């Protein structure tokens, strides 16, 4: 980005490029400051707390204890070595596993369903504008409201899901969807997929509308099977949009909190990283320990995003080389 200094002109005056850079900096400064205040500072504070023994009763009395919240190796008098800390906490790894399971399943289902919905909405039909607006409703409802709504619908006694299931003969007995450890994860997944498929559909639809119509016409004239058209034309062309949509959803899913906190707050079968770190931060008076878990959550997200972008690029360049 270095620009050669113009040979002529006064020493004190800046080149056009430098002037532009300086102006750009001043335009960006308010945003950088805001970002620092609302993103970087809290993050740094959390990382700092995770290296101390701070408690919520007095946030300023924490002492530096290094990495003990993450991993602490202690040798007992008997010579036995024991390990403590988040990195060897089975509850934490259970939460990580739950989060991963939840994220992959929900994003996969949402992508497939969203794409199907988008393909339907991309077709010309009467009342398309209305359907497009209507399909966004689940996404527009605040999560806390839809989670509470589903909690009632899934209720074993008064819930409509059980009622319909029983009347249609699909269920033999009423199922307590959110209470049963076998079904709790499915219940949460179902609500999340219901809620965020519209978002995926919208992003896919935006991608689909960018695809030039004449390619389809050419394919039609050549008599290519529609399935082949989808995999050879549509999918490669909307791939960039799809990749962005997937990463948005993935980031959202990996830090999922509200839905699970409302539907199944204390169930070990659905507890995610965010839920468990909040529990330690607030409920258990282990503020520093919870901060360590928040920091790990951040690290996992950061690694995931970097990998995704990196791998995504590798793929893209491989394709452009064809």
């Amino acid at each position: 980005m270095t620009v050669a200094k113009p040979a002529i002109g006064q020493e004190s005056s800046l080149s056009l490029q430098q002037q532009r850079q300086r102006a750009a900096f001043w335009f960006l400064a308010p945003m950088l400051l805001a970002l620092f205040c609302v993103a970087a500072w809290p993050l740094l504070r959390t990382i700092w707390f995770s290296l101390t023994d701070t408690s919520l009763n007095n946030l300023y009395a924490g002492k530096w204890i290094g990495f003990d919240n993450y991993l602490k190796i202690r040798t007992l008098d008997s010579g036995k070595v024991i390990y403590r800390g988040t990195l060897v906490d089975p509850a934490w790894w259970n939460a990580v596993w739950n989060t991963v399971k939840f994220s992959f399943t929900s994003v996969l289902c949402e992508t497939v369903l969203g794409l199907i919905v988008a393909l339907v909405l991309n077709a010309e039909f009467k009342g398309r504008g209305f359907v497009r607006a209507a399909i966004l409703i689940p996404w527009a409802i605040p999560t806390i409201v839809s989670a509470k709504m589903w909690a009632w619908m899934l209720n074993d006694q008064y819930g409509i899901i059980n009622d319909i299931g029983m009347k249609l003969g699909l269920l033999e007995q009423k199922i307590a969807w959110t209470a049963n450890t076998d079904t709790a994860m499915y219940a949460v997944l179902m609500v999340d997929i219901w809620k965020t498929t519209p978002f995926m559909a919208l992003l896919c639809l935006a991608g689909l509308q960018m695809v030039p119509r004449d390619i389809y016409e050419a394919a039609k004239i050549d008599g290519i099977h529609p399935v082949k058209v989808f995999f050879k034309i549509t999918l490669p062309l909307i791939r960039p949009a799809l990749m962005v949509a997937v990463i948005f959803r993935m980031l959202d899913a990996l830090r999922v909190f509200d839905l699970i906190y409302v539907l199944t707050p204390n169930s070990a079968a659905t507890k995610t990283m965010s839920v468990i770190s909040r529990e330690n931060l607030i409920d258990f008076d282990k503020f520093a320990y919870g901060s360590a878990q928040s920091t790990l959550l951040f690290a996992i997200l950061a690694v995931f995003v970097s990998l995704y972008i990196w791998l995504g690029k590798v793929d893209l360049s491989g394709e452009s080389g064809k």
Partner: protein
Amino acid sequence: MSYGFRGRALRSAAAMAIVSALSTPVLADELFYVSGAVGNAVENFAMLVKPWEEATGHKVTLVPMPASTTDQFGQYRLWLAAGATDIDLYQTDVIWAPQLADHFVDLTEAAKDLAPTHFPSIIQSQTVNGKLVALPLFTDAPALYYRKDLLEKYGVAVPKTWSELAAGAKVIQDGERAAGKGDFHGFVWQGNAYEGLTCDALEWVKSHGGGQIVEPDGTISINNPNAVAALEEAKSWVGTISPQGVLAYQEEEARGVWQTGNAAFMRNWPYAYTLGNGNDSAVKDLFGVTTLPVGKEGDTSAATLGGWNVAVSKYSAHQEAAVSLAMYLAGPEAQKARALAESNLPTIVALYDDAEIGAAQPIIPQWKDVFLNAVPRPSAPTLGKYNEVSSKFWSAVHQTLSGNGTAAENLEMLEADLTELKGDAW
């Protein structure tokens, strides 16, 4: 929140201006009182504080919170940690005193005449290192609700032991279902994984002679054959006399099933008594209450000691008025009004012999027996770690009830976890 802060700051700034302009020494304060809301608590609060408002000229606004005590605690702890000046008074659960003591005003001096009229054990539970953290508003001890009409119909006696309860519930459930009520259940209680399950399970364990999780001297006693037997017995109810969904029930869900006439027995707190006898209730005048059953002949019944208290925030700008309100709410007049309107159990001993209360709420004198069997949760010995102890306990119980591992396995793991949590001392 930001609106609250600003509105309030503006109001107090305006008020200051008026004071300095007119130099009037007396000024009406506006207080904010935060409390969880179950049943009809919100409507009743306005009625309850009216005499105090009229007498002092201050105004008090109720800030309602979710019914789950775990949710409330999280929010209060955040507010208090941040030193929020928005809330002047907190309605606190009986188990919170040791954990939040630092943030509340010491009421020892203000209540030196009032405190001795309350049950000493309750005042004791709210005293931390000689500091009276909160004043008791009402106490809570759950009881067994039973349908008088159905017990009579099926010739079932009021159960004394848990196995009698299970047998009776089965008979009634089978009978009612055969009569076409497919949604009828024998026994409903609180099985969700939350603080309420700690209360329910502590009762099962204690009434089987299995101790109280952590004894007053700090010993971890939970892993014993009686406790195992108690949990195995409770597990046998799920899916038989209790719906599978009971594992997601809190108080209000259980009351929902009960009050629509779909349960023969219910374990719940006293607030369900008045609501159950309300005009919109399907079980109005059809039910009675008794002490919770015991494991076997010779064991004593156990009811987890609940109850709510009022504490004054150290960060309040109107501490004088707030203390005055706390004193009023914990005093005989307000406690009597609460007892009449909401069947809340008074903590002032003399009110149990009050004729008016006895006539309007015949249940309250009865409840004295329940209250005498009350067992505290181990919040006193475990201090700041109580929430984690409770969470580990309810998780182990919930696992057992859901069929993930036997009671013996889960309690053994729980003992190991608690020992580790305890470390050298609680």
